[in-house]
């Protein structure tokens, strides 16, 4: 009996402490509350986005709640978080959807509760959204096509307008990589001496990129530049190039600015990569939320600048 009582006391105390510790009194401050729901917080990209959003919220006097499911693939859990935040009556919902179609019912629920939805980084599927009668206030994110164009322009400048170029494509039909590819090809279209001699998919994977690059090097041992639609493939290509003894003869450009790629650039094994700016996305999202709360109109598309790292 005594044991039971002490266990109960333990539970009561723990819950009380937990609740007291967490509650900063939502109504004690008159500051309007906004919420940012990201894909997961186990990824540096979203942790950076959170940091940008927090800084902006502090300077604008907004209360910011940042939540995410434990797993990036868990759309159901992300939907539950949104449902809960709707009950919390947040003024604006900023969202990086885990599933472009699956999240639509949650967006519609926010619409019904008259909470404006700011979509960040990954788009909500337009057709599904329209069919469900939902709306979003704005999309904030990077233009991947522009990033591809930037990569192309850099290679033109670096190699003096003349090169034999190989491309590692992403998963065929995957919008993000396709847009990067489109931009890159457009950039090169204006310089006829920049000749694309090979363009093959390596499905965003390192080992596939290694094999595909080895094959390309067999057929075209004279290439001087290689563009990969993400850094993971660029790193695989670097290994194949090193294995072929080509060292720095080929300028490799990737996309995403992963840590390993940045390291390869510092070590001069890789030429450049394209960096998105999650911190700026977070900042712009909160700025937009602030404008929405004050009844100002916001543009439907807000591109976030990307930068070249070399």
């Amino acid at each position, binding site marked *: *009996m005594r*044991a*039971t009582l002490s*266990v*109960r006391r*333990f*539970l*009561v105390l*723990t*819950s*009380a402490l*937990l*609740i*007291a510790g*967490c*509650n*900063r009194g*939502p*109504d004690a401050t008159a500051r309007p*509350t906004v*919420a940012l729901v990201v894909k997961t*917080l186990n990824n540096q990209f979203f942790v950076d986005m959170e940091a940008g959003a927090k800084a902006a919220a502090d300077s604008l006097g907004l*209360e910011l*709640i*940042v*939540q*995410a*499911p*434990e*797993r990036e*693939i*868990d*759309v*159901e859990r992300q*939907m*539950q*978080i949104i*449902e*809960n*935040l709707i*009950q*919390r*009556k947040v003024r604006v919902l900023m969202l990086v959807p885990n*599933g472009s*179609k*699956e999240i*639509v*019912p949650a967006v519609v629920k926010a619409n019904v509760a008259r909470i404006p939805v700011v979509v960040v980084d990954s788009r909500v599927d337009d057709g*599904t959204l329209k*069919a*469900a009668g939902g709306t979003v206030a704005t999309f904030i994110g990077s233009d991947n096509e522009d990033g591809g164009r930037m990569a192309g322009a850099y290679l033109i400048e670096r190699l003096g307008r003349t090169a034999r170029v190989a491309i590692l494509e992403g998963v065929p039909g995957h919008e993000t990589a396709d847009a990067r590819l489109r931009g890159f090809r457009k950039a090169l279209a204006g310089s006829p001496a920049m000749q694309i001699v090979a363009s093959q998919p390596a499905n965003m994977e390192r080992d596939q990129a290694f094999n595909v690059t080895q094959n390309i090097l067999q057929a075209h041992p004279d290439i001087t530049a290689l563009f990969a639609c993400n850094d993971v493939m660029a790193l695989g290509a670097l290994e194949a190039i090193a294995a072929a003894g080509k060292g720095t003869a080929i300028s490799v450009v990737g996309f995403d600015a992963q840590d390993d790629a940045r390291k390869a650039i510092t070590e001069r094994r890789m030429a450049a990569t394209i960096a998105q700016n999650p911190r700026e996305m977070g900042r712009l999202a909160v700025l937009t939320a602030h404008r929405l709360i004050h009844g100002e109109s916001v543009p439907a598309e807000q591109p976030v600048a990307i930068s070249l790292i070399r």
Partner: protein
Amino acid sequence: MISSSTLRRIVRGRESGTTFGLLVLCVGLWIATPYFATAANLSNVAEQSAVIGVIAIGMTFVILTGGIDLSVGSLVALVSVVIGSALQRGVPVFAAVAIGLLAGVVSGALNGLMITRGPLPPFIATLGMMSVARGAALLLSDGRPISGFPDGLRALATGEVFGVPAPVVMMLTLYLLAYLVLTRTVFGRYMYAIGGNEEATVLAGVNVRRWKTVVYAISGLSAGVCAVLLVARLNSAQPIAGIGYELDAIAAVVIGGTSLLGGSGSVIGTLIGALIMSVLRNGLNLLGVSSYLQQVAIGVVIIAAVLIDMALRRRVQRSSR
């Protein structure tokens, strides 16, 4: 064998502990945030608990017999994809759901057969099925989500019965059924008996193999019902759905006071266990607690629940002496 009055006392004791925990949590949240104790939020919490709540019914049966079912999360994905592809091929909603549920029952029964007819312990058999079902779901769907379904299916998630969300009605109906099966039928008695002492139950002339297979088939069925709810909620069938649901279901069962050793526990406890997890997650969202701390809090609650369970068991043992 245990007498029925002792059994009743154990059951009552366990549920009182869990219910007490739920009440503490609710009162705490009611004090901490004005957004918790609103009709809209409580209905929201109940709806969210349905997803894990439904799988946890089958899991309770399995654990009562002293087993475990790790495959339910993957079965959710498999059944989702089966329903999704059937709908895509123009099969009517009712038939597509029936085919999906059948797939769940068959996979569950296969688990049961591997365990009762073969030498495999439940942990290994269902661990294998976990991988097989996930792979099958990915194969069937080509790894892509299937979406865009008729309104008839969506109604299972969006509909209401006298103002109560349809998923809640579905969950409560299933719990009532499971409660009646466990307390009013011979099959229910067999489950407790198998978990309490399997050999003695075999010697008493009960066809243990058959009933255990049925138990795993029911677990597959409840994963199937969960899949129906999930597909209706997201309007999409995902081959990657349900990852980790087996652990959430086991947690609900354990918080609900059912012993992992088998032979004692109740389905009402499991319902309260599932509610505790949903209320906790809801409350932590409402309070804006960091996502990292939320995982810590859920772990703490599971451990605290088992501590209470053990303390209560000691009390029951002492008082029955």
